[in-house]
């Protein structure tokens, strides 16, 4: 029985298994990068057709689908492979700990002369003078390269100095391995305690729920249940308590139901005040995407922040990331924000919908907004057209009518202030056209991320120690000789041998040179 357990143990602690796993993870991952993950049937059929030809593609799809390659990084066998990898590392770490500990704790001991001859680094030479003067020099020479030596007298009148440094660096490899376990642990915590969702918020709208990214939409019964729960929520005006009551459920039960169909209650509300794309100069090259988002607790604002790519908002452990945006289909709810300057220099801001009109103080003119264009351009015949599906060049068209009824119309373009001036010397600038864009936010909660970062720090430290700091041992033996003292230097060093060789050379020079004075 014991031997069976031993076998299992040594199987899981073996390097051979590690090497097999390295190879398997690498090879299967390659397939996963060729097949587009979580993509539609048509998409991957196209990919496969270009690889194996039209005829074989459907069969290849079937085989790969059955093996889980369409979503392989979440497939049971890939997760098993990763678990095996973790188990391998864990068992290997436990297995090796006592040995590492022993090496780190064991002091160096004097060694026999014939053992010194077998060391990877060695030197032997005679210096004039007796062992005592040599000893003194040797101690200071060893100090000069950073070793604090102990000495032992031999029976034959010889003296041996021995020392080591950086014994702790043996733990570098160990820390490296453990850090990978820490990272994996952090990832698992994230999966079980966190969520990944998204929410789409038109300007002026708020939400108290977000939608999970991992909802499986291929199960019709789940989709129907989700629709009915969301229906209850909407008929309660988005209020969770009301919706729960309407279903004769307690609030926690209702929230649990929502989660089970990929709808995650936040416990607070997020409101999109405004969305903006900023451009480089007057080009259409985006410089920044930003949303002004406010968090509300029971309807009261708590924090506001401009969210940008690379600058998320964090509230109660939930992170909001700028991830997408869109122009709404219906532009009729938009509000033009206008900066009006009358001929005598008075300024005011007005917010108007298309179809509304206003008069400019100090003049007799009336201005009516007639049309909005998110991306104004003119075709060859001079007709206005829309050249993109985002607000690259927002403009409003206005009709200007004087007291005598004379009318003219023109486009006021946000980007080009020269279009803002009106005939009578006043100007109407377009600052924003609000309410027609929606921001897409990724919403994440990942309490494991700090564990992952801790693992990353350990990994970096561990690798640094593993590759750049080495455990050095050195022995110097001084024996009486006809011409003075015979010095034997021996050293071991598992890494960076060249650098160590230079240190030893320095030591030897010191030992030889010291006696010539």
């Amino acid at each position, binding site marked *: 029985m014991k031997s069976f357990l031993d076998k299992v143990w040594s199987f899981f602690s073996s390097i051979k298994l590690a090497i097999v796993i390295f*190879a398997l993870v*690498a090879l299967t991952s390659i397939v*996963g*990068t060729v097949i587009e993950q979580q993509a539609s049937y048509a998409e991957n059929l*196209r990919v496969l057709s270009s690889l194996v030809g039209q005829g074989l593609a459907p069969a290849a799809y079937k085989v790969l689908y059955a093996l889980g390659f369409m979503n392989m990084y979440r497939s049971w066998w890939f997760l098993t492979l990763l678990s095996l990898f973790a188990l391998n590392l864990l068992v290997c770490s436990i297995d090796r700990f006592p040995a590492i500990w022993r090496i780190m704790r064991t002091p160096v001991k004097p060694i026999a002369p014939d053992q010194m001859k077998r060391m990877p680094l060695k030197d032997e030479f005679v210096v004039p003078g007796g062992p005592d003067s040599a000893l003194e020099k040797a101690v200071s020479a060893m100090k000069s390269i950073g070793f604090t030596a102990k000495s032992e007298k031999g029976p034959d009148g010889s003296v041996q100095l021995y020392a080591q440094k950086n014994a702790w660096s043996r733990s570098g490899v160990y820390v490296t391995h453990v850090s990978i376990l820490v990272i994996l642990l952090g990832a698992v915590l994230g999966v079980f305690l966190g969520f990944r969702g998204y929410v789409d918020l038109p300007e002026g709208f708020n939400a108290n729920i977000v939608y999970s990214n991992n909802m499986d939409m291929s199960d019709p019964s789940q989709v129907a249940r989700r629709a009915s729960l969301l229906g209850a929520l909407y008929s309660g005006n988005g209020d969770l308590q009301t919706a729960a009551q309407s279903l004769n459920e307690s609030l926690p039960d209702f929230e649990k139901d929502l989660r089970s169909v990929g709808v995650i209650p936040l416990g607070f509300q997020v409101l999109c005040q405004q969305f903006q794309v900023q451009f480089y100069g007057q080009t259409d090259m985006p410089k920044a995407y930003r949303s002004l988002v406010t968090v509300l607790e029971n309807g009261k604002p708590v924090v506001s922040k401009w969210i940008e790519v690379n600058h998320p908002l964090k509230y109660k452990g939930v992170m909001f990331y700028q*991830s997408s945006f869109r122009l709404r289909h219906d532009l009729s709810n938009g509000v033009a924000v206008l900066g009006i300057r009358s001929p005598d220099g008075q300024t005011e801001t007005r917010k108007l919908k298309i179809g509304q009109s206003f008069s400019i103080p100090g003049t007799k003119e009336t201005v009516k907004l007639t049309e909005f264009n998110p991306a104004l351009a003119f075709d060859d015949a001079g007709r206005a057209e829309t050249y993109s599906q985002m607000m690259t060049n927002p403009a409003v068209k206005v009709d200007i009518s004087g007291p005598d009824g004379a009318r003219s119309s023109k486009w006021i373009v946000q980007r080009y202030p020269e279009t803002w001036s009106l005939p009578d010397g006043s100007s109407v600038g377009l600052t924003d056209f609000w309410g027609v864009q929606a921001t897409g936010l990724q919403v994440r909660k990942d309490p494991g991320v700090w564990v992952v970062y801790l693992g990353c720090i350990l990994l*970096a430290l561990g*690798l640094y120690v593993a590759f750049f700091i080495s455990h050095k041992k050195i022995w110097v033996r001084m024996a009486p000789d006809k011409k003075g003292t015979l010095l034997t230097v021996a050293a071991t060093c598992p890494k960076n041998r060249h650098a160590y060789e230079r240190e030893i050379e320095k030591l030897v020079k010191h030992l030889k040179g010291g006696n010539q004075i």
Partner: protein
Amino acid sequence: MSSRFFGFSEMAYILAMVVYITHFAFRKKAVGVTATGLAVFGFVSQTLAILLRWREFYMLSGMGVLRSIPLTNLFESIIFFVWCLMLGYLIMEFRYKNRSFGAFVTPVAALALLFINLSGMSTQIEPLVPALQSNWLLAHVTLSFISYSAFALSFSTGLMYLVMTTDNRREGAYIFWTVALGIFAAVLIAMGLDYARFHAAMNSNSFVKDYLFKSTYKSGSSAVQVISYLSTAVFVFLVWRYGHALKKIIGGFNLQSSVLDEITYKSVAVGFPIFTLGGLIFGAIWANQAWGVYWSWDPKETWSLITWFIYAFYLHARFLRGWKGRKIAMVAVLGFVAVIFTYLGVNLLLSGLHSYGSR
């Protein structure tokens, strides 16, 4: 302005490649000094070019100095890779007073720069899209390329090791390196053909992958496709058949294979920690800041991980299974193939295959 200096450095590296190889064959001191002179000249021009471009970008972007470091697109990162590689090589040459590796390192540098021309990638200065405006990204790209340079070195010495120590045509290691080298050269030739054929018709907006291999393996005519594959096979066969010639040349190097093995390991030992920190950890931190996921198994990330696993394989197989010599040199060569694929293949091949690439 910067493009002129890039031109100088490219010329200088190509000439240096020729002269280093000549030096390798004839071992005349004057030739060697010329080679070093050319390499230094190329390096200085390239440094100037990078600094000038940095300035141009700084003026254009209106962002901070550090943010304007020219490391934002494929073109700039290849330039940086070559710069690191040449810096590493020159340091090695001056420290070890040995020019032999020049014959292997300068071709990598020259090929990388030629690749820029062949692929017709954009060399324009482009403003940064929002996702790229991050200091973590900067650290990530810089360190990644330093590690790629170290891996490139291990690839060169690993390949030299294989060339030097194999002679039996039926031996796995021999087949491995001849086939790898043959395919590598064939792909470059195919790209050269694309370049010759499409260059005139190309404008700065058409992207490399739109025409990559369109004149050969992905040609509209199936006859051309078949001929392309056949001639590649013949080419690889020829490399296999006459690969010995290369061995004779390298044999003249007077290098000990154990030294090559040592340098291969050393380069991996330097590249691996830097790649782990810069390539994987900083990349993950950046992704987490930009999108809230530190790891999403996208093809680029996955290929970085594959590369990492191959080098982890190298370290463990070498140290613990006692793999030595040819077997382990093959792993080093394979590791760099994965590096190239991580950097170029994912952009050029996989994204051409997937729909997000054509969007």
